[in-house]
């Protein structure tokens, strides 16, 4: 730990809060860890997907004859091979639209809705042959006009993606087809009155582009449909149970027929929850009678997995001259991609969650467009909203002549603050984060260099609970096996093992965590939403408590004592009144075999006590006035982690999220041509930051304990991506005097703004 990474702890534990080496680390630094693409099975076939070259078209016909005849090809499928093709509208009733969307998302039946939409798939002896076969499939398309801009898609005369989609608005269903899938609205107090009381009102429109999670490992899936009708899947996913459910749904199978083994996963950030390939690989495997492996190319990842939505926003805020907010309002439209389901609701709930304000109103629209269906990306919805709200708040501060941190301290959400959509905050650490930012060396030192500026922005994410299951078995050498269903993307084996070790009072090294398949553990929700260290951690703690209770009763049995007279403390059992009777965990473990066998603790949790996360980021930027290029020269991220179980991995989450945000702010975007085709599906042209584009990312972990967890843990993975875009925009303003209101803030846009300011 260096001064660059501070942890402001109030409570110290033995294992929780320490920085042990992760259990899967050696495998990952030696190349031995098995990721999804590394799966090897006897007789393995390789699959490729034929994808639509059009952003919007009707499929008139598909002829797979020539592809099937190519030597080495073992199976070809289209949407006709999915169960949906044989199901009638009558059978499905109210479920028709939902299942059609799910099935068409796997393989398009009547229409393609984005460039990259799967239309057929081939399994062959190797990937090169499969690729050659794709070129032999003849698809007759009738191209249709496409719409990729969210506002354009909302217009009455916009091309319609789905003939049957109608707007659901506060429980009412619209009377004609529309690309607007839903309109949501929340209100608190009276915004008209609030704006009336304001001395200053700022109202702005802003936009953000589609961006991708950018995980380095492409999607993959290997399927083997055994002759007994049992389907095995090995895949890279944030949730093995989510894959099982999705495949069961599309293939109309009971979940018990499917076993999903989650392989090591090369990044996800929300993007590896949707199962894109598994149902296709399974169907090919069934048809070919052999195991089938399918890997996406990088272009497929960009064009056909889920990006985060582009958005349009109108933000309005009003305050008194002393800085007190009187009213806030947001209208936000998010593109869902080809099928409904953008995170617009999360955008609405997060937008103003940093502020305690009487009057607020938020309206949101979920809009389908001819882009790949969007997926979750770290704090889904919140970063877009924060870009809008936090830059407008900065403008308000500027107009009022207020320091941005003082202004936020004055209006900060705290325990008891009621959010616009209703919930009341429990103990949260936003004020503590703001104070830590204000007192940080970074904030007290002016930004360095010419044409430089500093931006401040805050962010919020609610965090998640949901179900987790854990088993802890005691080995006779005194170690324990910790079995869980949460896949480990960034060190959760370590952070959950630490919580188990802490609870049992044993050494971290004596806990052997493992992530298992869906047949080997109870239902566990995805790794995502900043829930794993919290919820699966809770499950591990409860399983450990159960082990402790059983160790107590075993000792009582050995000592022929009453259970009530035996207690568990500091990793040992002891008789409450006879100091002679004491057994360390290892000593007792050694006796288990001869006194009735091992003990195992099991726990299923569905906790509601997740604590909200808040963050404050400070960004120093330098803008080259000749080229419009922005360099981030210093960056500090401050965040309330509740309790950082493994501070290094908490810092890692913060740094990684902040850097994704820096990319989103400055360069990352889906670039579409006039007809709606993505033009930049490579890492060359989708410009994620390299090591050379960044300074060190300093962190401050604030610890305001979450009362919903024994060690005070809050989720940490999402909120770091929320403030960066606004922090950088505010920094660019200080450096140049320009307000950038559309993401990304590329050099080209900054030049254009400069020219406009200087009169063309």
């Amino acid at each position, binding site marked *: 730990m260096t001064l660059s990474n501070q942890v402001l702890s109030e409570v110290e534990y033995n294992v929780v809060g320490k*920085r042990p*080496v*992760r259990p*899967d*680390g*050696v495998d*990952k*630094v*030696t*190349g*031995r*860890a*098995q*990721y999804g*693409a*590394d799966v*090897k099975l006897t007789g393995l076939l390789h699959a490729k997907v034929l994808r639509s070259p059009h952003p919007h078209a009707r499929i008139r016909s598909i002829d797979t004859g020539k592809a099937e005849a190519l030597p080495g090809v073992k199976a070809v499928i289209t949407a006709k091979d999915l169960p949906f093709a044989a199901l009638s509208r009558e059978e499905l009733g109210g479920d028709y639209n939902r299942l059609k969307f799910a099935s068409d998302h796997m393989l398009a039946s009547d229409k393609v809705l984005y460039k990259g939409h799967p239309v057929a798939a081939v399994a062959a002896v190797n990937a*090169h042959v499969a690729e050659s076969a794709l070129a032999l499939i003849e698809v007759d398309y009738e191209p249709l006009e496409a719409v990729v801009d969210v506002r354009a898609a909302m217009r009455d005369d916009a091309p319609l993606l789905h003939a049957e989609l109608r707007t659901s608005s506060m429980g009412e269903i619209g009377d004609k087809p529309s690309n607007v899938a839903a309109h949501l609205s929340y209100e608190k107090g009276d915004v008209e009155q609030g704006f009336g009381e304001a001395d200053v009102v700022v109202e702005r429109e802003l936009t953000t582009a589609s961006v991708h*999670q*950018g*995980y*380095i*490992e*492409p999607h993959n899936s290997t399927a083997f449909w055994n002759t007994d009708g049992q389907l095995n899947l090995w895949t890279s996913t944030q949730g093995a149970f989510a894959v099982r459910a999705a495949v069961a749904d599309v293939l109309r199978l009971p979940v018990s027929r499917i076993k999903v083994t989650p392989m*090591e*996963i*090369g*990044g*996800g*950030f929300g993007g590896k929850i949707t199962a894109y390939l598994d149902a296709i690989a399974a169907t090919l495997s069934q048809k070919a009678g052999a195991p089938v492996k399918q*890997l996406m*190319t*990088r272009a497929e990842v960009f064009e056909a997995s889920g990006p985060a939505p582009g958005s349009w926003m109108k933000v309005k805020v009003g305050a008194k001259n002393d800085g007190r907010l009187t009213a806030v309002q947001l209208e936000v439209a998010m593109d869902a991609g080809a099928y409904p389901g953008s995170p617009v609701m999360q955008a609405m709930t997060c937008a103003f969650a940093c502020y305690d304000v009487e009057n607020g109103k938020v309206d949101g629209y979920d809009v389908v467009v001819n882009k790949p269906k969007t997926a979750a990306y770290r704090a889904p919805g919140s970063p877009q909203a924060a870009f809008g709200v936090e830059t407008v708040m900065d403008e308000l501060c500027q107009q009022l002549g207020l320091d941005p941190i003082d202004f936020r301290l004055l209006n900060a959400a705290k325990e008891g603050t009621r959010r616009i959509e209703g919930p009341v905050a429990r103990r949260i650490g936003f004020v503590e984060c703001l104070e830590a930012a204000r007192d940080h060396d970074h904030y007290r030192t002016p930004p360095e260099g010419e044409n430089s500026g500093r931006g401040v922005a805050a962010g919020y994410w609610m965090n998640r609970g949901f179900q987790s299951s854990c088993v802890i078995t005691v080995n006779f050498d005194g170690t324990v096996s910790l079995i869980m269903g949460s896949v480990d*993307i*960034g*060190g959760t084996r370590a952070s959950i093992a630490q919580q188990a070790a802490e609870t049992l009072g044993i050494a971290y090294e004596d806990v052997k965590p493992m992530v298992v398949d869906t047949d080997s553990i109870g239902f566990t929700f995805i790794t995502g939403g900043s829930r794993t260290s919290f919820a699966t951690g809770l499950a591990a703690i409860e399983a450990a408590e159960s082990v402790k209770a059983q160790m107590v009763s075993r000792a009582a049995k050995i000592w022929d004592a009453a259970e009530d007279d035996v207690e568990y403390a500091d990793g040992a059992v002891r008789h409450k009144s006879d100091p002679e009777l004491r057994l360390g965990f290892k000593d007792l473990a050694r006796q288990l075999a001869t006194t009735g066998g091992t003990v195992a603790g099991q726990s299923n949790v569905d906790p509601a006590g997740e604590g909200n996360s808040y963050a404050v980021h400070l960004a120093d930027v330098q803008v080259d006035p000749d080229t419009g290029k922005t360099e981030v020269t210093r960056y500090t991220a401050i965040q309330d982690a509740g309790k950082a179980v*493994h501070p*290094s*991995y908490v*810092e*890692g*989450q913060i*740094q*990684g*999220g*902040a*850097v*994704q945000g820096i990319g989103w702010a400055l360069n990352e975007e889906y670039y579409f041509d006039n007809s709606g085709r993505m033009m930049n599906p*490579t*890492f*060359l042209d989708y410009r*994620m930051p*390299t*090591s*050379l584009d*960044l300074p*060190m*990312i300093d962190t401050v972990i604030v610890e305001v304990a979450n009362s919903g967890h024994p060690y005070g843990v809050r989720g940490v993975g999402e909120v770091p991506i929320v403030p960066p875009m606004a922090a950088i925009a505010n920094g660019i303003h200080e450096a140049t005097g320009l307000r950038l209101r559309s993401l990304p803030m590329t050099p080209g846009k900054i030049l254009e703004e400069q020219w406009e300011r200087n009169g063309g």
Partner: protein
Amino acid sequence: MPGVVHVQAKINGEDTNFLCEPRQSLLEVLRDVLGMTGTKEGCNDGNCGACTVVLDGRIVDSCLVLGVEAQGREVQTIEGMASPGGLHPLQQSFLENAALQCGICTPGFLLASRALLDAEPDADEGRIRHWLAGNLCRCTGYDKIVRAVIQVSTAPEK
């Protein structure tokens, strides 16, 4: 129809013979023909560095090398980085500094970092950031990776 070619190369110090099609990249050969899956694919077009290997002493992206080009040459991969005696100091430093999250980029970063420190043992932060710019990591924001390399470098701490 062109067939398969016999190639002889030294891989991690071992004389190795394999058959491959000319169109197979060195990355495909390592992973699919030789079963050495420690070398990773992130993009297959030279932009991510996950497939980094050492070819005759230089780091290259193995997705942009043909397997047949390895004929008579020496290839080093992540599988050869640790010795039976233990991890390479960089591997140890990556573990201790939490320089990996998902780990998919890690083999590439390790080989690239080793090549740098072999050539320039005193590389400083700026040099390390420049050298590693051909390796993308999406999880860490590079901070802990750069720190892990600095720790092994002999450059004076700033």
